């Protein structure tokens, strides 16, 4: 007979990566106590629809809940933020003062929307960010009121919000600081292609400019924005889509390295500021900064759905293996992938286009909605992006996988 597992495992962050980690712990036979802590009051839900059909669907907003299998048998601490981690005492403190002891812990607190710099006065009512279900409902209501929408930041998220508002018939202005949307993420060719899609859909794209100031009405509500190029744009609603900031504030004082995300080793074990491994603590998803072989080993937090799923799974496996070298999984080496849906065009990408120093355009057809670009770094393939050619991605992905697997096997330290 197996003895009862007395270990207590805690997952902090009850969303995509955290739920995947929790499910994996159970699927791999963990029978001890499992607690999920989340600061949102809602059970886990999926975020990609928040900038797509949640904004556009007529009638009631569509459901986005993630399925929670009943075999999960977890204790839920929802609506409770984790406020302190003590990796020496092995305790987690919650906002209400409860201290939870743990034998193993998964950090999956994701990211928050980047707002205006803290030094500036808070923006007037009518200015939104989009990260959570509550944010999406608020923005949905604002879009229903009509008027012009200004989206600040023409990344994938900003682009999707602009497209959703346009689909609802709003007038939309998209403001981007760089000369080309998405240039640093996927290069100028794909960026120009996406800008053309926006303009074709009737969105006003203003590049090379930023928001200086918000204009307000006498009642204090938003009236528009003043741009750094001197222009003013009247608007009823503004969305700041300036990217995400990893949610690591609660790790202050823990000794963990967490600038720009929680630093991890290739097996997703969390590191201290001196680079040593914190025992029995792993991280996954948007909060985790993990060495990326395709970016020359640089630690990056990716912010993609598939990454959160794959790291959640891998981090759970690492946690269960503990210090047993026989069970230790290999280094995390999944090929990143990303998608975005804009004006009916399905943008799909694999690898790390942002790490490239060279792009090769294989196909470029704006009218036919087809695009195929491969990305290279020091002459070697690091990524690919397609529109209307998803079928072609599989071979790029395979090539990247073949490159990653032997590379990581060779770099992996001998099991100790």
């Amino acid at each position, binding site marked *: 007979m197996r003895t009862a597992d007395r270990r207590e495992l805690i997952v902090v962050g009850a969303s995509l990566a955290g739920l995947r980690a929790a499910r994996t712990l159970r699927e791999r036979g963990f029978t001890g106590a499992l607690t999920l802590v989340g600061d949102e009051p809602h059970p886990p839900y*999926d975020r990609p629809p928040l900038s797509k059909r949640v904004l556009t669907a007529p009638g009631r907003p569509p459901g986005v809940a993630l399925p929670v299998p009943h075999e999960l048998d977890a204790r839920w601490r929802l609506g409770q933020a984790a406020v302190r981690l003590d990796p020496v005492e092995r305790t987690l403190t919650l906002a209400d003062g409860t201290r939870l002891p743990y034998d193993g812990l998964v950090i999956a607190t994701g990211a928050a929307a980047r707002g205006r710099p803290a030094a500036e006065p808070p923006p007037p009512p009518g200015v939104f960010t989009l990260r959570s279900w509550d944010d999406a409902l608020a923005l949905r209501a604002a879009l229903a009121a009509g008027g012009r929408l200004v989206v600040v930041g023409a990344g994938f998220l900003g682009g999707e919000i602009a497209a959703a508002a346009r689909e609802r018939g709003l007038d939309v202005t998209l403001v981007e600081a760089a000369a080309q949307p998405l240039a640093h993420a996927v290069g100028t060719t794909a960026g120009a292609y996406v800008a053309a899609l926006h303009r074709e859909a009737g969105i006003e794209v203003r590049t090379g400019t930023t928001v200086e100031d918000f204009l307000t009405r006498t009642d204090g509500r938003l009236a528009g924005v003043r741009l750094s190029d001197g222009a003013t744009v009247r608007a009823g609603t503004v969305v700041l889509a300036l990217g995400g900031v990893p949610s690591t504030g609660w790790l202050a004082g823990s000794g963990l390295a967490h600038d720009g995300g929680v630093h991890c080793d290739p097996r997703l074990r969390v590191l201290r500021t001196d680079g040593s491994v914190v025992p029995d603590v792993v991280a996954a998803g948007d909060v985790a900064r993990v060495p990326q072989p395709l970016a020359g080993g640089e630690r990056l937090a990716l912010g993609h759905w598939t990454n959160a799923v794959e790291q959640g799974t891998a981090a759970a496996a690492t946690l269960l293996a503990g210090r047993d070298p026989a069970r230790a999984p290999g280094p995390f080496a999944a090929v990143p992938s990303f998608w975005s*849906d804009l004006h009916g065009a399905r943008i799909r990408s694999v690898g790390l286009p942002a790490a490239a120093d060279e792009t090769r355009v294989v196909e470029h057809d704006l009218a036919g909605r087809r695009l195929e670009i491969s990305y290279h770094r020091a002459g070697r393939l690091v990524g690919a992006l397609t529109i209307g*050619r998803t*079928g072609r991605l*599989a071979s790029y992905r395979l090539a990247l996988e073949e490159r990653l697997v032997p590379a990581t096997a060779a770099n992996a330290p001998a099991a100790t």
Partner: protein
Amino acid sequence: MQITVDMNLCESHGQCVFAAPEIFSFDDEDRLLYEAAPDDALLGQARKAAAVCPVRAVTVSPAAS
């Protein structure tokens, strides 16, 4: 084993094609093609495909017989 894909949900993400290339593929128009009753040896691949589909369109059921 039996595979079903809810084509009303599928958004051609291709994650299933990456996870289980012997079962799933695309045609020239980016429509998903798949083997409805693949060999049981591919069960692991099939489960992985179902787990990574962002819209949960893939269902894997053990052989009916």
